[in-house]
């Protein structure tokens, strides 16, 4: 990861870059790195019901990996990710590109409306989504009843991934649309104009000009949203809290992490599972970074 381009290297000699970065670095260490390292250390502390905590490099990891709930939660998250991520990316890029193609008032209104559901969080989100997905009181009740099981319940573990995906897209798309739209407006209009003069149609402009120019944004969105998907927590918690007994409270891996930390007060196991989760996300991030040459400084 030492991609430096010659022009940037030339810039370097007289630049006090660290002065610009130092204040941020202090915050990065204090509120990012230090807590993470402490969390890592905690993963090696084994708490037991009797006796003092002990130190073990592997015990918490063994305990967590052999938890009977983990395979189910991992499968749930995998299914969720497979449904949610493609829909999210499709919605975000289609809408952002359409808004950028012609910047009309209608496009602006659409951008605003897509953002609103994501702004509702916490207790309010619990209320909102619970009503949305309860067939008898929901505005889309007729649609939901198409999926209800014979006993009348909608939220079984089987349909849950689908429900969460809809909710995840409704709540998550708006923010990314703002980001992608911002990236698209940052493209110099000269580039797009000259492509049009060369006879490129709208699709060609998108595929060969616009998307390649914002590819580092695409990589970033892929990394962060994949990690968000793996760590899905708020959505299943919200619905599980509103419909007790209908869905497992450890439906996702991250809920299992919280269950270790809060219900069992076993911070070591919580940290161990959180680290395993992080390892998967980092492996994917590194894969995406190397595939897209994410850290090149560009040729401009």
């Amino acid at each position: 990861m030492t991609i430096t381009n010659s022009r940037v290297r030339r810039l370097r000699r007289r630049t006090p870059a660290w002065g610009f970065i130092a204040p941020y670095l202090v915050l990065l260490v204090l509120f990012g790195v230090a807590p993470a390292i402490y969390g890592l250390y905690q993963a090696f502390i084994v708490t037991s019901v009797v006796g003092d905590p002990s130190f073990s490099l592997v015990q918490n990891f063994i305990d967590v990996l052999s938890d009977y709930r983990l395979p189910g939660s991992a499968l749930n998250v995998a299914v969720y990710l497979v449904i949610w991520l493609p829909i999210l990316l499709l919605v975000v890029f289609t809408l952002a590109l359409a808004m950028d193609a012609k910047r009309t008032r209608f496009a602006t209104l659409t951008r605003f409306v897509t953002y609103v559901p994501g702004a509702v969080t916490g207790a309010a989100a619990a209320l909102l989504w619970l009503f949305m997905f309860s067939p008898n009181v929901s505005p889309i009740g007729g649609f939901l009843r198409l999926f209800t099981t014979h006993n009348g319940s909608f939220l079984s573990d089987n349909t849950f991934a689908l429900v969460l995906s809809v909710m995840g897209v409704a709540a998550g798309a708006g923010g990314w649309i703002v980001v992608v739209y911002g990236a698209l407006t940052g493209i110099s209009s000269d580039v797009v104009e000259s492509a049009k003069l060369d006879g490129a149609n709208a699709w060609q402009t998108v595929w060969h000009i616009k998307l390649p120019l914002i590819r580092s944004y695409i990589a970033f969105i892929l990394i962060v949203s994949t990690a968000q998907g793996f760590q899905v927590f708020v959505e299943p918690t919200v619905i599980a809290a509103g419909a007790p007994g209908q869905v497992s409270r450890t439906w996702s891996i991250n809920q299992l992490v919280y269950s270790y930390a809060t219900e069992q007060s076993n911070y070591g196991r919580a940290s161990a599972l959180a680290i395993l989760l992080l390892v998967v996300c980092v492996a994917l991030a590194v894969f995406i970074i190397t595939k897209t040459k994410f850290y090149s400084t560009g040729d401009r």
Partner: protein
Amino acid sequence: MFTQLGGRLGRNILFAVTILFFGIPIVWLLLAPTKTNNGLSFQNPLSFGNLSQIGTAAGNLFGYNHGIIWTWALNSVWYTVASVVIALATAVPAGYALAKFAFRGRSTVLFVTLLTMIVPSAALILPLYLEMSAVGLTNTPWSVILPLTFYPFGVYMIYLFTTTSIPNSIIEAARLDGCSEFGIMTRVFIPLARPAIVMIAFFAVVGSWNSFFLPFIMLTSQDLATLQTGLQILVSSTGAINGGNLSNIPIRAPEVALAAIISILPILMVFLFAQKYLVAGQTAGAEKG
């Protein structure tokens, strides 16, 4: 001509369907305070209840604990403003430097920044609490403000924007003109990066305003609570959502919906305000100068 029309029609249909999909929850939420708790279950979900019911819901909500909701709102404003100002003051120069200067450790800082963004927050919250507790800041506003000033997402956005949209030639030109490095950042870079800065400022406001676990863990006294934590405590203590409100406190689903509308209003106002500036920046003209 025909494809032009087809494209426009296609786009408008796409937008209309989108508004329908994203709009239904919003419309439901806006209508919820007009109904009674029972009405929410038995009336048409998208019907308008009764205007006077909003007054009842508002009376119940603002009357709770002598209007403590105003204290929570003020706390939210103060924590948000303080953390966003510091977050921007640190993230903007850092993102700029990471994009435009090559120095030892550049990729490392970028990678660690990305890493901290994808660390499960469950793993960080207890260490953060212990950290704040060690310096005696728990149950003070600073225990919420300080961790929120760390803004890796903002740093990344500025970095991405700067590498994609700000040509080196502009900075080199300013340097040749004898501008100081600090001057280049404040007088050349920041005006050009305004759309990106406005965008991260907006996301920082939302992040701080909506942050839940941090104030929930750090603050114990009710007078310091934010709108989000205060409402959560209120809702869970009255069972307003699970339908099991057996207490005398008149906080039920319509009150919670009203509280939801009140707590997202500032965000939506900031969004509408910021939207104007998201599009502005074009560096094409600057480059030719």
